[in-house]
Structure formats: C-alpha cells, structure tokens
C-alpha cells in the first residue's frame, strides 16, 4: 500500500481564494469558487499555469465550466480522474453539468435498452 494516493488528487489548502479552481493540470473542467458572470473573463490557477477563460454563460458557485473546448464523447476529467463523458460539444467557458455530461457508471437505463 502506498500512502498519499487519495491525497494526491486533492488540492493544497492554500490559494483557493480564487475565481475558480482546476484541481489537476490534466483536468478539462474547473469549479467556480464564486458566482461567475457571463461574458466576463476570469483568471485562475490550473496546475502550474494560470488560465484565462471567458464565461459563455453565468456559472453558479460550486458549478463547473469547460476550461478548454471539449468534444462530444470526450472524457470529463476532474481531480485528474474520469468523472463522466460529454454528451455534446462543450465550448470553453460553457456550463459543464448534467445537460452535457453523462455518468459512465450505474447505468441501468443502458442495460434495459440492451446496450
């Protein structure tokens, strides 16, 4: 067993007072740490870089937006891990949530259709 595996996916405690947080550099979604306005450009730390993204729509505190353009069918990455799949193209700065992301797990609906 290796200690630190779970912790490694978590952000450091400091430097969270930001507009948004992208937990891992390989993530393609970021989480709003305040209500973000449509049309405004916000900077936030993404790994070692600072990204600048213009919101396509208003993003509520705690909700996610696409940090980069995401194509339909692509994995959604948060915490450096796959958390779902895009069901539509999600352009940078657009709200990334249940309307354009599906879960890959617990999908009894797919079983019913014989998929």
């Amino acid at each position, binding site marked *: 067993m290796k200690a*630190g595996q*779970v912790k490694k996916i*978590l952000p450091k405690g400091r430097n969270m007072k930001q507009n948004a947080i992208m937990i891992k550099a390989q993530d393609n979604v970021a989480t709003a740490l305040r209500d973000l306005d449509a049309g405004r450009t916000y900077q936030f730390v993404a790994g070692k870089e600072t990204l600048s993204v213009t919101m396509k729509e208003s993003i509520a505190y705690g909700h996610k937006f696409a940090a980069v353009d995401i194509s339909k069918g692509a994995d959604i990455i*948060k915490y450096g891990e796959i958390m779902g799949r895009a069901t539509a193209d999600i352009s940078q700065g657009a709200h990334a949530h249940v309307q354009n992301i599906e879960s890959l797990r617990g999908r*009894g609906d797919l079983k019913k259709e014989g998929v």
Partner: protein
Amino acid sequence: MEFLGYERGDGGIGTRNYVGILSTVICGNEVADKIASQVLGATAFLHHQGCCQTPIDINRVNDVLIGLGKNPNLAAVLLVSLGCESTNIHLVADAIAATGKRVETILIQEEGGAAKSVARGILLAQSMVTDASGLKRAPFPLSELVLGLKCGSSDTTSGLSANPVVGILSDLIVEAGGTSILGEVTEFIGAEHLLAKHAKDEKTARKMLALVERMENRAIQMGFDIRGGQPTGGNIKGGLTTIEEKSLGAIAKAGNAPFQAVYEYGVKPDVKGLVVMDSPGREPEILTGLSAAGANVIAFTTGRGAPQGFPFVPVIKLTGNEKTWKNLIDHMDFNVSSVMEGTETLEEAGKRLLLELVDVASGKLTKAEISGYTSSMDIYMVGPVI
C-alpha cells in the same frame, strides 16, 4: 491527548450515557417512543423492519439491534417488542446482556396493550437512568474512539474542503490507535480504483471492490440511470454532475491510512485502524450501521446543509460552504470554509477538528443533539418486504 468517557463492562468507552429504548420491530415504535419521551436520559431507536422479510434481513435486524445495544454510548437497554414479529427479542436481549449491561424487555401483547407497556416501560427506564446517571466520566486515550465517517447533502465544496479535512481527522485518530469506519459504498463508484490502492493488501482491496460491484448492480438492476438518485437532486443543484465526481470527493474522508478490513453492514470491526463497512449513503441507514458497528462519535460533512443526527451517537456537522455555515447555523457545528477561502490549510483545519471531536466525545453537545434533530435511523435491508 485524552477524552472523558464512560467505561462499560465489556471494555467499550462511551461518549454518551443514555438508556436506549430499542424497538425490535416497526410495530413497537409507538410504545418505545412514548417511553423515551417521558424519561430524561432515555432515547429511542425506532425503525421500519423486523417482520415479513426473508431470513437474511431478519438476521440482520437481530444483529443490528445487538450491535446498537452493545454500543458503548448506551448504559442500559430496554427492548420493546409487539410479541409476534420475526425478530428474536430473546436472542437480542441475551447478546446485549453479555456485555454486562442491564437489559429489560417488554412484549406489548403479553403486557396487555400499549398503555400498560408504556407505564411499565417508563418505570423501568427511570430505574435504569437512576443507575446510569451515577456513572462518572474518566479520561481515556483517543485509541478508544471509534469514529464513523459520513458526508451528506454534498456540493462541490465537500470534495474540496470538508471531506479532506475529515480525512486528516481520520488519519489522526488512526495514528492515535483508534478506529475509523468508512461506509457509503455507493459513493465509492468511480473512485474505487483509488481507494483500492489504500487497502492493506490485495485480498482486502478485492473485498472492497466486491462491495462496490454489488452496490452498483443493485442500482443497475432497477433499470434506470443511477443519476436519478445518485447524485441526488440537491447534489446536482450544488454542482455535482455524476456519481463518479461525487465519489472522487467523498473518498477523501478516508484520508491516507491503509484500510485494514472490510465488513458487512453494521458489523463491529475486530481490528483497529481504518476499515470499510458496506452501507448505502442515505442518512438513516448509514448512521444506524455506523452506530451498530460501535461508533461512539460520527463526523458528518455537508455542503448544502444536512441536519441529521442519531439518537445516542453525537454527529458533528462540518461544512466548507460559507453560505451554508451562515444560513444553517442551527445545524452546523464546525466551519471549514476557511479552507475554501485559503486562510487555513487542510492540515490546520484537521487538527482544529480533532480538538472539537475530543470536546464532543467528552460531552460537548452537537447542534443535532441540542435541537433534537436526532431521528435519522433505520436498518439497511437486502431484500424486499414480503
């Protein structure tokens, strides 16, 4: 560091000193509730099981009642039965009495109805409370703490702040030689590969993965997308999109300690350290399961504001959501929005939470206890009502 607890005859250490009025079946709830409501220091455990179920579930009801009765936070136990249910009250009574606790039973049908049962129950409970109230708290090491872990009404702040803070708390308890119980197997789905790396060994990892597969199949068999129920509507409003995302945040409660063993629902761990226990994520079932497994204190993270507590185990509510902390202050015990604000590290918040936990274990009341929001209880069942 030490906490002040109540020593029980079987070696367990209570953080509370209640007389438990346990209903053995749904049909005994009214009487158990009335007895408890009339006696200061008594508290009722009510549920909806115990009859018209298959043996796997009836055995589980027996076992969970035994586990609850043995919980060190109870000084004595009064079992209330209708008299015709499938639960075996005598088996339950004998097993609890083996700890040295006083155990009494009331069978409503034999007693001559509810009024007589309530009257005798009140007198019995009064006498039990008189004895229990004479016990004094004494200092015990943190190794006597059995910490239950829970998150509820999560939002995206849960995975970023409150859950990792609880993970640090769990690590501190484990380092001190105590026990920490991780349940909510539904919320391993999508993150189990990370948790598996925390297993003591390969065999233990496989046991955990089997629980996850069983839980996921339970949901899949219903023929719907799990997203209808997990994440919940509130989770989705709070910004959580998929069960995978919820799980990736939820498993942070486990901290970094290796998990030593995997147990079925409500089973008391026979090892110290971090352990995994089967349970769904819903409050009544997991709070009951943790308590049956011997948890004497529970740390419960929330994003949107979950108020639930348990009748005889203190449940500490912490949130990283500043809005929730302010808006639901009558339900929140501990604020870690400092982590979201960047004014405190996860480690600092975790150490601060340990001090709060020691205070609560030593008698400081939680908001759930003060407000009486402590009725989140039921037994997790495998099969149907038949």
